[in-house]
């Protein structure tokens, strides 16, 4: 297990290094000058040069990348601004804040959104999917399958405003979406995120319903399940001890990747509900030509996906004894 983890973590580090290098190069391939935005209306060449120097973008590209990379391990000194302690993901000249500080500030919103919605879609998605599999071919199965097909083809940017209109603006059943830290006011945290959770969960529940159903149906037709039945085990035992465990493997894999993506920021959801999470931060960084911030968000997002994959691999082996950590 230890060897597995060390090997995967080293692989993850290399993956993140490649992602950061590619992001860095791609950003500079776009013919936009980050210094221009800070140069005011009457922008003379001298002033532009001064800003570039202050931003550290007058160095050769490899040097800039090295400065950024080494900052993660040893920190960086920004002339006139101060020291950015390790791990330093850079300094945003747009927000005038350290990238790590901003990412830390935004992460709880994204994490709350991801965790809350995943609880809802896992419970309802897996539950409905299992029910549909058990009642395969019957009315319940058909209703669940049809409903999930409809829901999974919907988009946040459509369902979100409709939900807001119906549940918030018209009927006032639920609160206006907003993020309040859990530690500050748990009730406000819950009510403020309920609409985004439900909307996000509606679409993801549909996906998990379909996946769970198909996995369960497939597993229930496996030889070992038939053997278990033939041995006279109860339906409940067959279902939960054998079939469910076998079907969960692929679902865990998908969930791990989905969580990584959600923790990296559900951009459209955050934008639809005006939640200031990592997704919105990424969008704004692109609009503002804010390379340090974009790079920071990209790295954090990529780290979540990579880590989620490692966790999934480990959990997979625990769920399915047939899998061994090679």
């Amino acid at each position, binding site marked *: 297990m230890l060897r597995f983890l060390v090997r995967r973590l080293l692989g993850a580090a290399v993956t993140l290094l490649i992602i950061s290098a590619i992001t860095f190069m791609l950003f500079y391939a776009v013919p936009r000058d980050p210094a221009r935005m800070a140069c*005011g209306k009457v922008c003379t060449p001298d*002033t532009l040069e001064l800003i570039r120097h202050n931003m550290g973008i007058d160095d050769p590209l490899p040097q800039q990348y090295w400065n950024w990379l080494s900052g993660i391990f040893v920190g960086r000194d920004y002339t*006139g601004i101060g020291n950015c302690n390790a791990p330093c993901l850079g300094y945003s000249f747009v927000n005038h804040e350290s990238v790590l500080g901003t990412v830390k500030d935004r992460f709880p919103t994204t994490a709350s959104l991801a965790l809350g919605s995943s609880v809802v879609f896992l419970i309802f998605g897996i539950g409905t999917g299992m029910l549909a599999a058990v009642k395969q071919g019957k009315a319940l199965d058909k209703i669940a399958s049809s409903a999930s097909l409809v829901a999974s083809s919907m988009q946040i940017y459509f369902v979100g405003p409709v939900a807001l209109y119906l549940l918030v603006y018209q009927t006032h059943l639920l609160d206006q979406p907003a993020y309040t830290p859990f530690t500050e006011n748990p009730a406000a945290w819950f009510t403020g995120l309920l609409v985004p959770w439900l909307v996000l969960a509606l679409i993801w529940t549909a996906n998990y319903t379909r996946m769970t159903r198909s996995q369960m149906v497939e597993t229930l037709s496996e030889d070992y399940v038939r053997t278990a039945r033939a041995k006279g085990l109860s339906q409940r035992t067959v279902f939960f001890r054998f079939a469910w465990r076998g079907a969960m493997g692929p679902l865990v894999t998908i969930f791990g990747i989905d969580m990584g993506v959600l923790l990296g920021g559900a951009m459209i959801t955050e934008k639809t509900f*005006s*939640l200031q999470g990592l997704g919105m931060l990424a969008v*704004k960084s692109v609009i503002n030509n804010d390379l340090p911030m974009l790079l920071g968000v990209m790295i954090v997002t990529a780290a979540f996906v990579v880590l989620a994959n490692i966790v999934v691999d480990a959990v997979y082996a625990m769920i399915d004894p047939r899998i061994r950590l090679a």
Partner: protein
Amino acid sequence: MSFSRRNFLIATGVAAASSTVLSACSSGSSNSGNSNGGKHDAAKANTITIKVGTAEDSKGPAPEVSGAKKGGKVYLLNDDDFSHLDPQRIYYAWNSLVEVVLARTLTGYKIGDDGSMTLVGDLAVDTGVMKDEGKTWTFTLKDGIKWEDGSDITVDDVRHGMERGFADFTTEGATYAQVWLTGSEEPRKSYSGPYKGKHLKSIETSGKSITFHLAEARPDFNYVLAMHSYAPVPVKHDTKQAYDKKPFSSGPYKVKSHTTDKSMVLVRNEHWDPNTDPIRNAYPDEFDFTFGIEAETAIDRLIADTGNDQYAVSWRTIPQSKIQQATTKAKDRTFTALGSGTSVYWINQTRVTDMSVREAIIRAWPTAGIRRLQGGENRGDYATGFMSPLVAGYKSQDVWGKLKKPEGDPAKAKEVLKKAGKLGTKVVYAYQNDPVNAKVKVVIENALTKAGFEFVGKPLDSTTFYDQIGMVDNPYDVYWGGWSADWPTGYSDFMPCFHSSKVVDQGNNYSHLKNKDVDAAIKAATEEVDQTKANDMWAAIDKQVTELGAFIPDVYMRRIYMHGSKLGNVKMDPNFDGCMLYKMYVKA
């Protein structure tokens, strides 16, 4: 395009997607046109009164708003945070709209109920004493003006604010005064700011007076000092770069908390004395800004008008997609007015050298069709020139008959072209590659083709559009542009946009007009001491550059805003094109 201070919305909104309807915040002021189905055009656009006030006008308190009372909290629904709060880093109206309640300046604008603007002394007892035909200006500070800690605002603080404008971290701010105070187009080479213990030799202080010695005559320098770029900063509380997050207030409110891109709360500055302030009323106790709310979402919330949203204002214009819904469901809570921006289409004089060709393009131009695609009447009133009706001296002078035929006159254009022997002339039109501009391009193509031109459309990436058209040797004949003056006299319209010295890469003379007569006229108007005469001279220059075919007049831009039902006197600041925080009040 580099944009003027008041033109940030043009730069970021319309420039990016010209379908965006620019709008402003005014409820019933005389400068606001009636949007109830009437046609908006330049002839109907009422010019507002802009004058220099007396020492008496500069005395506080500001006239009370009828029915207004103190107290309550106002919620601002913003899509974006303010890019700067450090006054020396402020150029754009977006920031000035909030800075005006945090930072007082030597002079400022007293806005009348009718939208008129009177330049008055804000921190100064009057609008300054001019000598040497505008080369020397002296201002004397009022008694009782305080910082948020209760300490006096001194001339040292005023000088410090001016000197900070030279620092290497305040490059975003205006540079007009820096150039005039040093006599150098690269002022930072002459002086690097106050942090090395040196003061500018061109600024003298004595007791409560501060004197500016300018390298050139600037008879409207007192207007320039109303810009937030020249607001005082306390020497003792200057936190340099960190000042941008939490400036030290001299206005009626101070920053209680500010989390970038999330929220900001302003509360009363108890050391602000209304008796020293002729401009600001400051009725609400608190302003609560929430950032990151999409403009569409903000309007949905305001239409629903529930809870705290009854006390809210949309900080950004009503998006085109929501105008009909907003004006139908809550007409009494929406308001439209003319903004200070003018939309034009530049004609590149470097490439289109023949006046007949320029005339034909202008005559054929389908202004009405373009406006329909960009929001109709809410987009703006048909323009006749470059100078906005919100600039002193504006005169409606329809040189090209655009008011009579806003849909364009391809037949007449063809006649002009034929007479000049230029039928079939190629016109390269550059535009931002977005859905609305793609439709606009088709309308223009049809009109110019009908007039006998060979039309070539060149879609450009929105993010680099201004970089590309900003090159003097750009390969395009016609392209869009927006502008508004940095202060309401003609100087900051015509000097940056039409003087031959500004035909440089990434300069603001996008038409590349190089005309000795225009240069001479600009110089004469700039040096004219009598501002009434100067205003007439700027109006004449407006006609002159229009006649030269440097641009195709498009529209004087309009703005439309919305507020909750529990707010009163929500009006537009004609100087900054947005809601005046210091004039509104909470009804109940």
